[in-house]
């Protein structure tokens, strides 16, 4: 269909190339582009629609031919029913605990390091920085086994410590991002504070942190997305079902035999996991995109 359109468009364009004004041709290109964009968007969006619509169907309507495209009447009570098959409240609570502590750790440790690297002069600064951010291009597969052994020896297996504690010791990606941001802030303000007798810690807390708010927000958002969706960490370190996070609970639900008949509840759970991420994205879209672009372009 679109192929035929394109071809006839090409023939027309050739025949009347000299007659047509540039504007008409541009408009045709515009139409084709627009059609592509809309069609692509429909394809990309359809899985979401399918997810939400399945989550609102009665169990009997999930397995039906022809399919029930629009769930009428909708069954929002499915979302309440989820809580009766999996301990949803518990999972949400666990995920929130881990995410918030990981965010706090990342903000603190990464901003400290970024300030040190961006503002203070000390021997070996550039070399240490390069070494410290090298894990960005290092597969973590290579250090995960001894890490596990370490945490296991510490008696941290089946606890949240292995998921939370490392966050308080910096992450290369976010140190990099924050340092880049700080390098772009003019020095004058700090100099003024230093003249007023503020120490390095005071300058960091009273001048740097407030100025770095947008970058810190970006780090918080990325960290939240990472921690909220993290699967591997909880999978490896948590075995007690009462400690399960949302993704781990969802994977466990999917793996259980009952999931094959409770697809509507499975989809409802996956919608619940996605909602905070989508909300964060919508409300912080600018910060979000900026962060990605920042590391991508200046990397």
């Amino acid at each position, binding site marked *: 269909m679109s192929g035929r359109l394109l071809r006839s468009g090409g023939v027309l364009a050739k025949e009347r190339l000299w007659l047509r004004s540039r504007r008409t041709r541009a408009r045709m290109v515009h139409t084709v*582009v*627009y059609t*592509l*964009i809309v069609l692509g*968007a429909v394809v*990309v969006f359809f*899985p979401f629609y*399918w*997810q939400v619509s399945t989550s609102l169907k009665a169990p009997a309507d999930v397995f039906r*031919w*022809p*399919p029930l495209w629009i769930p009428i009447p909708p069954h929002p009570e499915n979302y309440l029913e989820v809580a009766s098959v999996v301990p949803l409240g518990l999972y949400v609570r666990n995920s929130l605990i881990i995410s918030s502590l990981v965010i706090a750790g990342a903000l603190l440790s*990464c901003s*400290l*390091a970024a300030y*040190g690297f961006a503002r203070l*002069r*000390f021997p070996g600064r550039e070399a*240490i920085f390069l070494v410290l951010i090298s894990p960005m*291009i*290092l*597969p973590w*597969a*290579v*250090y*995960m*086994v*001894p*890490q*596990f*052994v*370490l945490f296991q020896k510490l008696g941290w297996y089946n606890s949240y410590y292995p998921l939370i504690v*490392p966050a*308080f*010791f*910096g992450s290369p990606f976010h*140190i990099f991002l924050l340092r880049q941001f700080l390098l772009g802030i003019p020095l004058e303000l700090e100099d003024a504070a*230093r*003249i007023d007798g503020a120490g390095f810690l005071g300058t960091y807390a009273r001048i740097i942190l407030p100025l770095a708010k947008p970058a810190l927000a970006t780090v918080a958002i990325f960290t939240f997305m990472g921690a909220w*969706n993290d*699967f*591997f960490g909880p999978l490896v370190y948590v075995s007690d079902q009462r400690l399960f996070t949302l*993704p781990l609970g*969802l*994977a466990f639900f*999917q*793996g259980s035999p009952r999931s094959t008949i409770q697809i509507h509840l*499975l*989809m409802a*759970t*996956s919608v619940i*996991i996605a909602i905070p*991420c*989508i909300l964060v994205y919508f409300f912080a879209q600018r910060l979000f*995109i900026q962060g*990605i*672009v920042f590391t*991508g*372009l200046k*990397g």
Partner: protein
Amino acid sequence: MAIRSSGTVTRRVSLRKREALAGYMFIAPAVVGFVVFVAGPIVASLVFSLTEFRLIVPPRWTGLANYGTLVRDPLFWQSLNVTIRYALAALPLGLVCSLALAVLMNQKVRGIAFWRTVYYLPAVISGVAVAVLWTWILNPEFGLLNVLLRYVGVKGPHWLGNTRTALPSLVLIGLWGVGGNMVIYLAGLQGIPTELYEAAEIDGAGSTSRFTHITLPMLSPIIFFNLVMGLIGVFQFFTEPFVMTRGGPENSTLTYMLYLYRNAFSYFRMGYASALAWVFFVMVFLLTLAVFRSSPLWVYYEARGGR
């Protein structure tokens, strides 16, 4: 700085010393983290790889035995094969699609911000939620894909249950999330000075040659960045095969990470898993190095003034 430290030389030295000391204090947590959680474990995993280590009993020195086992392990070769095939499909497809999408999203059409949001949305949700959703979409009987195929009279296969279609299905799912890279390309596209295009147009360059002679070279640093990041990403592909196929059918989606995970955390063969990890590390390192080495040939960096 110079004005303030106009006192004695010793004072300046002590000031500098204090600043250096403070610097080390500020980066200390990150350095400790690197040593304890990354560098130490990397060295440890090399040592572990030379032992038989089943977690409960202390490691026993076995020299290169694990590496010998590895070479004769059919599942090692299978997982390597799966991972390379996945990488060869997912990496170029992902690069091309995200770039094409970015070019499309860079057009001046109505409501473009809305469309960008739609394309980016799949990149926002990730991991298990995506895997669970796509398992349902690829359901042979009532999944979205086969339902649509049925409308046009095609009986769709059992996507995830067939050795021929399982891995390509996983590649397809990865493509759903290209919006993430699209955003980076888009920013790059918007950073290209329009004068370049105008000059080229005056010189009579068509749209194709404008793309190959301006757009691609100007974007090459970003392509490079995405390639390096993508390389590490595709080689550590785990969540989707773990949740959706458990490596099956007949190990056709047994990725390297999945096999590594099993050895470490299902069989607790920590020594063997470490050997697998080191082979993996060397391979990914060499590939990344090759990409870095090749970059002068195809990555174009503008001469930057200042700094």
